[in-house]
């Protein structure tokens, strides 16, 4: 029961963040808008990781393994940036 409550709670938080993204896209332009919407997206995926993917119930090794996917994305971002910044 308590679990269901927290799931609904997280869902509300996600909807609020979605509203924030939409609002920000109308209010902010340029790099500031990009930074804000990326920040919000980061928060949203954090919530999903932690609650919906049950990482809050897992042990250390599983949490690290889940971070592995993020580390993999960092490879992509790091090398793409290396190209863009030195072109």
């Amino acid at each position, binding site marked *: 029961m308590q679990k269901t409550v927290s799931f609904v709670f997280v869902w509300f938080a996600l909807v609020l963040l979605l509203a924030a993204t939409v609002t920000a896209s109308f209010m902010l332009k340029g790099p500031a808008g990009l930074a804000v919407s990326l920040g919000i997206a980061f928060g949203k995926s954090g919530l999903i990781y932690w609650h919906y993917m049950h990482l809050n119930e897992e042990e250390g090794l599983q949490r690290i393994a889940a971070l*592995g*996917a993020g580390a*993999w994305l960092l*490879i*992509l971002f790091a*090398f*793409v940036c*290396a*190209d*863009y*910044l*030195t*072109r």
Partner: protein
Amino acid sequence: MTALQERPEQADRHDRGLSETDTERQSYLRAGHSLGSWFFTRDHKRIAILYLFAITAFFMIGGAAAALMRLDLLTSAGDLLTNEGYNRAFTIHGVIMVWFFLIPSIPNTFGNFLVPLMIGARDLAFPRLNLLSWYIFVLAGGFTLFVLIAGGVDTGWTFYTPLSSMFSHGNVVLAAVAVFIAGFSSILTGLNFIVTVHKLRCPGMTWDRLPLFVWAIYATSLILVLATPVLSITLVLIAAERLFGLGIFDPKLGGDPLLYQHLFWFYSHPAVYIMVLPALGVVSELVAAAARKPVFGYKFVAGSSIAIAVIGFFVWGHHMFVAGQSMYASAVFSFLSLAVAVPSGIKVYNWAATLYKGHISLDPPFLYGMTFIGLFVVGGLTGLMLAMLAVDVHVHDTYFVVAHFHYIMVGGTVSAFFGALHYWWPKIVGRTYPLVWGRLAAIFIFLGFNLTFFPQFLLGYLGMPRRYHVYAPEFQMLHVLSSAGASLLGLAYLMPLVYLTWSMRYGAPAGDNPWDATGLEWTTPSPPPKHNFDEIPVVDRPPYDYEIEMEGEDG
């Protein structure tokens, strides 16, 4: 009902009766005869067979497109296909061969069939998911065939922007959807293998006793799970730009066409290892079984699979040397590309060391294994040439590149696929096939392959660009040679279809372990019963535990 006895004389090939042996009657092949028992099965072995049918069909369709191209290339004028038609032919050839044949080929057929048998399990960790991934695959294949009927796509399998996002008239979005769907099948399969290897190993099957094929499938699965989502998202971005004008790749809208190449190759270079790693695993098995010796440097061969999977993620920029990538990034990618050759080299040297002084039998599986090794070495070394920044400027987008990757993907992976087919066929259907025909087919494949693709190295070095069907007349001789080789190769690929099918009915029963090899899969009856093992086995010895008998010791 009268019980049929085992055939008395296994080697008696004149006995062509329809008799079924006792093991056959209890095997997974006889566990239900209705269509439903196949299409709703959760048995990993039957799903493997479903995949075998599906990918064979796609291999033939992709092969038909190749045949059209080789026919067109016989003359320097484009007189068989229109320009547009030629573009569509090579696109459908690439899309089908990469996503609907090579990527699923070894993992989804032999991986599915063998991984549970090799680690002493009764099935994969998620049998329903396994069946689902077949249906997703078939759905994606259906989309691809629809694209084909609806007129095709002309972007090449790489879907480069801005051609794909702004200019192409073909069914780009539909084709992207097809590949997108196929991606889910890949991800589910990869996930299934990872969990299976972690959770379902039988007692005593420690990580350092896993067969090398399982190591290779495990490494492949890691790539499948980590890289495929990037491809899926990239294809969605193309569709979003085409349909909604979202500025991702179009500079006018603030995008960058090169970003596409980064995203695409971040998936696709690792994907070439998805295609070749399982083949490397197969060859390790074939070499050990042929040499009848423990694999030299087992830990290094196993570890090199993981190393390839990891390093393979750091080299994608070698596809963008002349695309306008920063010079510094190019230099770094060039250097890193040389590093990825090291683990591949480890494998080849260790195979050679395993074979050294082995008691080698020239059975068909080993001939395919040798075909793989020879062609893979040529393909890999030319990969190194291409990874040299300065050399690549000269040969980029020529037939040299075409020859390079066909040596690895066709000469390598497809040969290993046939090697696996010839090695495990007696296990899969329980019958032996005529070894002579197996040897002949292997030899024809080797000859036909080299006649087809070696001239393409020369063509490319002389400046023949890829993806053109109208060319300077001085190239014609080499193109004719290549087309002649392709006909031989095509016939050679059809040969096993005939004698393997024949063997299902007329071949002699194989017995549990026809090659006298180690490995848990050979301790089960051929074909295995539905649940693989009556009792879950316990492993108490190292892998490839052959009694060493050196050449010449027993005269």
